[in-house]
């Protein structure tokens, strides 16, 4: 049992349920007009009953069994063989491109002032959406026939990677270069992990996919596959398991590659040499802990522009006792230096956004935007205006994605609400004001 499981169990182990079986059983067949008075608490309500239970059960029983998927199977959906706009030898499938009336956002990624990608909950289906008008309208660009369990990685204004995962069975990687209008996929390949979690990375025609399982084990089991033909075919490069830590692979975590050989993974759930940033120089075959400055704690996945790169020290950013810091490199990640952030008494509202190898933006809970364009050497601080302060007095920012330090999106929703209830807001003045642009 890992630490979080232990701590949760410790919280409630020994807590005894005071309700006896007889308290329950005597209410099971009681006429509804007598139940309210008989039950042991006054916190009951009138609008439930057998019909609601039947509905709940029907919904549950209509769901596929554990480990399966609505689009169960090992093969991608029917599609058109032959040439595609990218000239790849794969299979092309279209998306519906239907406009999503009220997108429910899971995550957003702004790729230019007018374009962006999002993972959205469209009805009961998780899908991918694309905008070309700054976020005002979103089109469903999920490859036709692809099921809910997927990983998604934008790679440019019109380009992206997507993996359709059939847990314990197979994965298929899709690529697009036309904003999701069409997707190209190659062969499906077998996978052995069951949570449907995956991370994607690419550099030119080299594509990596890491399939693993979420959790808090010391080493999260994962398999790393690589394609050298733009995602058409994949070969296993490395793997780890939770029971036998593989010394050359630190476990499940997001991946990024600078070229065919040099890459990083940010291990947030343990690793053979502890948590943090691991580096490969041979395309993923071997990994070692990156050389980080003293005091660096849990480092997030870096973003590179050539040899320049930035990565947040996530643990320090999130800590209330440590000074938040940004790590920067100018030599492709061989060496890293720390840059401090003038956060003052403010704290971090959402995961910081690294825009490039030199630019990064962080939003404080006060609504203040902290931005750098020189790798953390200097910072601009922009305080929210009155309307933004009013907005954030009852709402929270759950995610930010900036195109420049002054133009960006934020998912903002009522405090305590589900992530999907957040609406998309745009700022064009560095966070002085926010304007709802979708939903």
């Amino acid at each position, binding site marked *: 049992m*890992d630490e979080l499981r232990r701590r949760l169990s410790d919280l409630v182990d020994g807590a005894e349920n005071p309700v006896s*079986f007889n308290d329950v059983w005597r209410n099971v*067949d009681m006429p509804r007009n007598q139940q309210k008075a008989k039950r042991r608490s006054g916190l*009951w309500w009138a609008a439930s009953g057998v019909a609601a239970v039947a509905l709940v059960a029907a919904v549950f029983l209509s769901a*596929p069994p554990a480990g399966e998927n609505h689009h169960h199977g090992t093969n991608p959906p029917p599609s058109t063989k032959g040439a595609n706009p990218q000239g790849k030898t794969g299979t092309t499938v279209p998306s519906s491109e239907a406009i999503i009336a009220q997108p429910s956002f899971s995550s957003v990624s702004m790729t230019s002032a007018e374009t962006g990608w999002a993972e959205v909950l469209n009805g009961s289906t*998780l899908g991918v959406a694309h905008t070309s008008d700054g976020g005002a309208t979103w089109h469903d660009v999920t490859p036709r026939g692809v099921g809910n*369990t997927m990983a998604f990685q934008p790679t440019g204004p019109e380009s992206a990677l997507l993996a359709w995962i059939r847990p314990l069975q197979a994965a298929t990687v899709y690529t697009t270069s036309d904003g999701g209008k069409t997707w190209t996929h190659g062969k499906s390949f077998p996978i052995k992990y069951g949570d*449907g979690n995956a991370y994607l990375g690419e550099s030119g025609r080299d594509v990596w996919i890491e399939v693993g399982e*979420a959790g808090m084990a010391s080493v999260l089991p994962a398999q790393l596959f690589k394609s050298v033909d733009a995602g058409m075919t994949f070969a296993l490069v490395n793997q780890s398991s939770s029971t036998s830590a593989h010394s050359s692979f630190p476990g499940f975590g997001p991946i990024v590659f600078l070229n065919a050989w040099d890459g990083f993974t940010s291990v947030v759930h343990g690793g053979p040499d502890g948590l943090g940033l691991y580096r490969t120089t041979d395309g993923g075959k071997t990994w070692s802990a990156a050389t980080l400055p003293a005091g660096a704690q849990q480092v997030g996945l870096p973003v590179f522009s050539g040899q320049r790169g930035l990565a947040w020290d996530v643990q320090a950013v999130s*800590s209330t006792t440590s000074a938040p810091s940004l790590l920067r490199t100018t030599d492709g990640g061989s060496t890293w230096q720390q840059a401090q952030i003038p956060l003052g008494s403010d704290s971090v509202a959402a995961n910081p956004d690294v825009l490039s190898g030199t630019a990064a933006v962080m939003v404080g809970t006060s609504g203040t935007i902290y931005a750098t364009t020189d790798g953390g050497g200097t910072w601009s601080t922009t305080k929210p205006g009155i309307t933004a302060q009013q907005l954030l007095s009852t709402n929270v920012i759950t995610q930010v994605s900036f195109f420049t330090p002054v133009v960006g999106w934020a998912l903002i929703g009522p405090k305590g609400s589900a992530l999907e209830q957040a609406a998309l807001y745009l700022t064009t003045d560095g966070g002085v004001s926010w304007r709802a642009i979708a939903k």
Partner: protein
Amino acid sequence: MGRSFPITEDQARSLYGSHQARVFRFALLATHQPTLAADITQETFIRAFRAYDSYDSRLPFEPWLLKIAVNVTRTLLAKSRRTVPALLPDRGGEAPSPEAIRLAAEESEALWDALSHLTERQRELVILHFYNDLPLTVCAQTLGIPAGTAKSRLAAALAELRRLLPVAFREGGNVRG
């Protein structure tokens, strides 16, 4: 009693004995209110026994039961907010020795506080996955959400817990992050 229900009293008693503690503790983690957790437990089993004929016995019972518990928790928690602030501790007047359990108590308080900062939906998922040990795909089905949403929601929840509990996640080596 001449019931026409699809479950006998003996069957119900057996299921209740096997699962009541897990349901109660799920509800307690979700609400941090023992009284409310007891109400949730009672209503969950009432609903489950009434709808037992819709349970497919080829599938595990606990996920089916927890799906009902999740729905009951959401409804009762929403109702209770009208009178009781959510996740306020209800310790029942216990007075443990401060020094003897100081560290444990601080740890528990920190975790309760961290759980209270999660959204309701995040908290349900964390509890189902890490306390009730349901695989993420089963959690998704239990909560009626796509697996991808469960994945992103869990990632956000863990990120929030890591942000709120940096020290706790640093200790033990395998949990930090």
